[in-house]
């Protein structure tokens, strides 16, 4: 495995007035890793992620994502990443095909590429009969699988997934992780947040944020050893219970 670093932050900080949402976080993510970004509600995960995807300017510190600077090269960052979240992923009143065309177009694929890659995607997800249906009619699990496939259609270096499996049924949730593994295997780095602690076990490495600070970062196996815990859930609860700030 190559040890190419695709995300590197150094004392990355974000303040809102006198409130420090993200407090000097420093970490590196390697190419092809599945990096679990965990933390309690209000710990600063979303704020940190917004800085990494180039839509929020840091207050201080530095970070490079896919080789680009989060202060000056946010447009290049956006071209080299994919993003999906539980809250917003696809346009509900556009059809599957239209969503693919729209997002692939935004990500800069040519019409030819959109056609061939879009078709391959629809076949892979077994959505041939549904491709002209509006996305709003699909079950949530299908939507999320489709959203993920679209987010990596332009072969980004990194894909950011913000609670991608919330509310999804247990079988589909696992199929979704199969897709994550496949993407990582193909060299796409996966940066993922989740509240399902069994999913934390599937990550190559996991960071846990408490009160704006990264308090732990290692492989799930090492974290369990370090904190003498039987599961990632125990590790998480041990660390997050120490949180002092009132969210």
């Amino acid at each position, binding site marked *: 495995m190559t040890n190419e670093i695709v995300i590197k932050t150094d004392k990355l900080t974000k303040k809102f007035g006198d409130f420090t949402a993200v407090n000097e976080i420093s970490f590196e993510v390697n190419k092809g890793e599945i990096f679990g970004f965990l933390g309690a509600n209000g710990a600063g995960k979303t704020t940190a992620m917004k800085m990494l995807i180039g839509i929020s300017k840091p207050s201080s510190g530095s970070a490079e994502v896919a080789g680009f600077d989060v202060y000056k090269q946010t447009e290049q960052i956006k071209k080299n990443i994919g993003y999906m979240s539980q809250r917003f992923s696809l346009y509900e009143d556009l059809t599957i095909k239209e969503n693919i065309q729209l997002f692939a177009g935004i990500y800069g694929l040519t019409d030819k590429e959109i056609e061939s890659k879009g078709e391959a995607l629809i076949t892979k997800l077994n959505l041939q009969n549904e491709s002209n249906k509006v996305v709003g009619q699909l079950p949530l699990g299908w939507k999320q699988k489709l959203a993920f496939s679209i987010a990596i259609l332009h072969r980004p270096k990194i894909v950011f997934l913000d609670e991608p499996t919330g509310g999804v049924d247990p079988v589909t949730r696992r199929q979704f992780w199969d897709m994550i593994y496949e993407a990582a295997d193909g060299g796409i780095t996966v940066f993922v947040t989740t*509240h399902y602690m069994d999913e934390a076990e599937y990550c190559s490495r996991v960071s846990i944020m408490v009160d704006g600070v990264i308090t732990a970062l290692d492989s799930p196996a090492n974290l369990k050893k370090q904190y003498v815990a039987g599961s990632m859930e125990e590790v998480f609860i041990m660390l997050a219970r120490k949180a002092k700030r009132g969210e």
Partner: protein
Amino acid sequence: MQEKEVLYMKAVELENIVKTYSAKKSTVVAVNDVSFSVNEGEVFGLIGPDGAGKTSIFRILTTLLLADKGIANVLGYDVVKEWKTIRSIVGYMPGKFSLYQDLTVEENLEFFATIFNTTIQENYDLVADIYKQLEPFKTRRAGKLSGGMKQKLALSCALIHKPKILFLDEPTTGVDPVSRKEFWEMLKRLKTMGISIVVSTSYMDEAKLCDRIALMQNGQIMKIDRPQTIVDEFGKNLYAVNSANMFRLLTDLRAYPQTESCFAFGDKHHLTMKEDNPKMLNDYLTNAGHNDFNISKIEPGIEDCFMQLMKI
């Protein structure tokens, strides 16, 4: 236990409830002939993913939505004819945050108290545990609260008129494991105060915290019982298997001819076999080149049961 239940009045009764939604061309059956009852003083869980029909059931029971077919009662009152009475005795926490974002924490609570002709002081003991954590922020606007705080405020507002029954629609969705744990501890305390609770969740691990649960999918109930009974009725030996290379192990287990079902479960894979022979599996994995693996028989969880039922 079973025969004792007749002494209780039913907190909720549904009989053959059907609810369909029609869009331009298509019709979705959100609730498909659902019947169940909830005993008074019970914590009853509706467990299932998005789209299972949980929210529609909540909205029918809280008289906000009319069913196409079937009968439903809440504490003996009919949801159609006696909706007014029901609204005064139930507390409802919708899945989507529905408080007034531009009112402060305190103003929201006061507003809900006033609507039900009561005051914060009158029922303060009921919400004290929860509201105490919010009091330092009582002048903050609700819209500016974080997820966990919003959830506590919503629960306080649903409780302030001292309802006899609480309907909580996915109160822990998107909530971290620590806050989820705390939330369930709060529910336990409310139960001891005699409030019946109907709660839905898509987190299967929360199922075991309910007295009884209904496992739901696509508008139908797959099973209703006590969590332990459902686990006892799994009917198969379940094995947890792990090895140094978990990803390859999953592929190999799926390819194993005797595998009936195999799912990743955190740091283990859960497996049931057609021919239940761990020794044979042991040989198969050894031959496949796994040297550092471990096979152990375990008790299934609700998530195992849910997936087993889904496949039928």
